[in-house]
């Protein structure tokens, strides 16, 4: 079903989301992909604070193309989430409430989603131009030297995502595919 949520997200609301829900997010979310995750992990290993508050927030696995004049951001679709699997369980245990990406996750990540009452959303891969228009502002808040891989705070409005993995342990990638599989 269609739902509208705001970000940051409450734990209760995250827990109420179910695999298959079509969700529109309005509020603040943060981008981070490969290089930013590696740096965050290194910061944690050194006992340092992270450049963003993960508790209650949503991380969008995305590295945009450059913005043209007078636009907040360029093309801005999701990247493959599995490359962040190594880092995600730790962040979820620290309170990260949602992840937006595309593609399968490891059991460790899915377990951490259930354990923490979090949620994994998919945005439509390859819809970067459309998703770009739902981003109202973008600001680099850390690791500027990483260019497209820097951590950005995004203000989004009705940003469309689909719940893939929920806190009850459902995984849409598995259930939906079975429904359309032909016996061979």
């Amino acid at each position, binding site marked *: 079903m269609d739902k509208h949520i705001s970000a940051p997200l409450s734990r209760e609301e995250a827990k109420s989301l179910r695999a298959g829900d079509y969700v529109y997010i309005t509020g603040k979310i943060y981008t981070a992909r490969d290089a930013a995750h590696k740096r965050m992990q290194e910061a944690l290993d050194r006992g340092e604070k992270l450049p963003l508050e993960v508790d209650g927030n949503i991380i969008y696995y995305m590295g945009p193309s450059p913005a043209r004049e007078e636009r907040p951001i*360029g093309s801005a679709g999701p990247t493959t989430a599995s490359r962040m699997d190594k880092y995600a369980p730790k962040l979820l245990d620290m309170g990260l409430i949602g992840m937006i990406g595309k593609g399968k996750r490891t059991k460790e990540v899915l377990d951490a989603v259930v354990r923490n009452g979090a949620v994994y959303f998919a945005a*439509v891969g390859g*819809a970067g131009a459309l998703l770009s228009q739902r981003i109202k502002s973008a600001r680099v808040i850390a690791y500027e030297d990483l260019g497209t891989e820097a951590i950005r705070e995004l203000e989004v409005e009705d940003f469309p995502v689909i719940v893939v993995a929920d806190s009850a342990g459902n995984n849409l990638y598995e259930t939906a595919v079975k429904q359309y599989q032909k016996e061979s």
Partner: protein
Amino acid sequence: MIRTISVDKITENIKEMCIEANHFLSPDMDTVMKEAVDKEESPLGRQILTQLQENLKIAGDDMIPICQDTGMAVIFMEIGQDVHLEGGCLEDAVNEGVRQGYTEGFLRKSVVKDPLIRENTKDNTPAVIHYEMVPGDKVKITVAPKGFGSENMSRVFMLKPAEGIEGVKNAVLTAVRDAGPNACPPMVVGVGIGGTFEKCAILAKKALTRDAGSHSSVPYVKEMEEELLEKINGLGIGPGGLGGRVTALAVNINTYPTHIAGLPVAVNICCHVNRHRTRTI
């Protein structure tokens, strides 16, 4: 007769093609994407395909790249043997075209200088260039920016000759099944069969640049393309990997002679943003 072509002309064309390819799908891809909306049975799948139609419109109207992963620039150069290139080094001219296209076109710079040290080159160079010498006095350039969500799901299988055509079909289905949602379906599947380890991979890459909806001129290969497309669309993966009938838009297969002891198969997967632009100078 030797025909002289300035390498500046090559730079200019490559620059334009990088920008075009990242904002406008080629007509063949546009057609199969439109057809997919009607073919899809899953309501969510149809919703995603409709969203992708809207995405393509926004990309062209507002000049926002179709996908933020504007790819590593793969360039096929077919150079007529009666052509003399003047004005500088060809490889530098090709990379200069990529540099200008990615910088002036607001495209993402996704190339790192060293695979392990991973420092961004900041202009998306170098390109991956495949040269071929052909008869004639023309230069045919194909620019195919390749995104890595799908590139990462591509595979090479060194099959045994005894595994035959069934082995090849299984290899393709295995690669597509494993790729699942990661490769941004609906995908285009490029397959190279034969040659050597590296040759089959290049065949598969080049197969992706052949028009979606076209078929091999070899009858058994054409049949295999049709059969595999149907089988892939029976896997249930669907648009976005969220279930449905349209998992692939096309299966393009290229073959080449091979060794008595081998049956190399490469499966190069591309997402629905299968970008390719060709010009002949």
